[in-house]
């Protein structure tokens, strides 16, 4: 099987996984919005939390894997790690955007303002910008070996930075406590709400895998085309 054929097969499998993920997500959200009980203090607006928390999980997964794959590339220098890390970063940025839009949408009906510098949302914002920077750096480097090396360096730095950002923002917020909009602590969450949430998280994980697989396959196809254009080692 040629590299191109393998990539096309990977893309097809990715599409199937994505489709399963989307179906699962739709089911989980329907469950959460229609069948799960309405939260006492926050009302129906709280149900956006199913979208928000599952997206948060996928964001964390995506960025964490980008960091680890970057480390893997630096150690093994295998381009697959680089292409996967980049795919994961793009998917992570997409999920982060979902988080950053659903968070304020959740906040507005409950607290009256869209943005309250909530610790988790603020951390997400900085992390989002960090990985947007990662993608911008990749876009600015044309030689793919240099791009892979430099992105990997930035990816490892980013992995170590994220906990620091989280702690910094948290400490800052404990000094200036403002309404905690996103009470996502599992403690005290009844099973009737926890189960659709877990379903949504599982579906989002599946969706993450599907997206990354497809994005990775696309990157490989692009690489194959460039390789053909340049001629090989004859």
């Amino acid at each position: 099987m040629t590299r191109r054929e393998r990539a096309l097969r990977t893309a097809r499998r990715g599409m199937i996984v994505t489709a399963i993920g989307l179906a699962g997500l739709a089911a989980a959200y329907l469950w959460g919005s229609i069948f799960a009980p309405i939260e006492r203090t926050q009302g129906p607006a709280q149900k956006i939390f199913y979208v928000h928390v599952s997206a948060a999980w996928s964001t964390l997964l995506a960025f964490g894997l980008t960091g680890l794959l970057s480390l893997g590339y630096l150690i093994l220098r295998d381009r697959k790690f680089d292409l996967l890390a980049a795919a994961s970063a793009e998917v992570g940025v997409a999920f982060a955007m979902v988080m950053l839009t659903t968070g304020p949408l959740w906040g507005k009906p409950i607290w009256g303002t869209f943005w309250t510098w909530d610790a988790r949302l603020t951390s997400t914002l900085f992390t989002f910008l960090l990985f947007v920077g990662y993608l911008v750096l990749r876009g600015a480097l044309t030689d793919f070996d240099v791009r892979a090396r430099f992105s990997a360096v930035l990816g490892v730095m980013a992995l170590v930075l994220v906990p620091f950002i989280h702690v910094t923002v948290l400490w800052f917020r404990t000094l200036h406590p403002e309404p905690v909009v996103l009470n996502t602590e599992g403690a005290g969450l009844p099973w009737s709400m926890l189960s659709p949430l877990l379903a949504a998280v599982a579906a989002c994980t599946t969706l993450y895998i599907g997206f990354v697989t497809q994005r990775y396959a696309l990157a490989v196809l692009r690489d194959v085309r460039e390789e053909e254009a340049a001629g090989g080692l004859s």
Partner: protein
Amino acid sequence: MTAPAIRTRDLSRRFGHRWVLKNVSMEVEPGEAVLLVGGNGAGKTTLLRVMAGLLKPNRGSIECSGSVGMVAHHTMMYDALTAAENLAFFGRLHGLPSDGRVDRLIELLGLAEFARERIATFSRGMLQRLAIARSLMHEPDVMLFDEPLTGLDDAAARIVLGVIAELESRRAALVIATHQLVELVGVAARVGFMVQGRLAAIEPIAGRDAGGVVTRYRELAADGG
């Protein structure tokens, strides 16, 4: 028999998807000078950069024993510093004692009256000579030249040829990439022909003149490497 100063085995290097060096295998003995001849884009500069350790091979291997000096198109020095300051800086990076070798080399390369001037004002010939001085600071076992005579007037060229001869007598291994065969064909023992990233042949010059070497190159280039 002593080990070769430079040995490459199936050396290959790419930039992106483009293979610029393909399976280059050659050896250079201490005290030997080898010319590298080839068209633009044939890979001469890349080969020299791999030998210098500036690029790693993607496939194959290279062994270079001893210290390496290189004189290339870019001076690799700082315009805002004087000639003496540039040399002293590189001396420090090599851990060399300040034993007056900076002044001696500047003298040797005919730059004594410009020693305290910033090199931003230097001509091409002066820069080339200063680059050679910098490379000689650490008494290299291997010297790599990338088009050493380009843009030089006769006087400067003669100084460079003198340095090459001196290095040969000191048993340094030399690799000289060049288009200017007339001046250099007498200096080297062997010549390597690069065609589209491959070392098409490497053979003794055997008394051929510049014209003879060019003819041989055209033969090999026509064969497509």
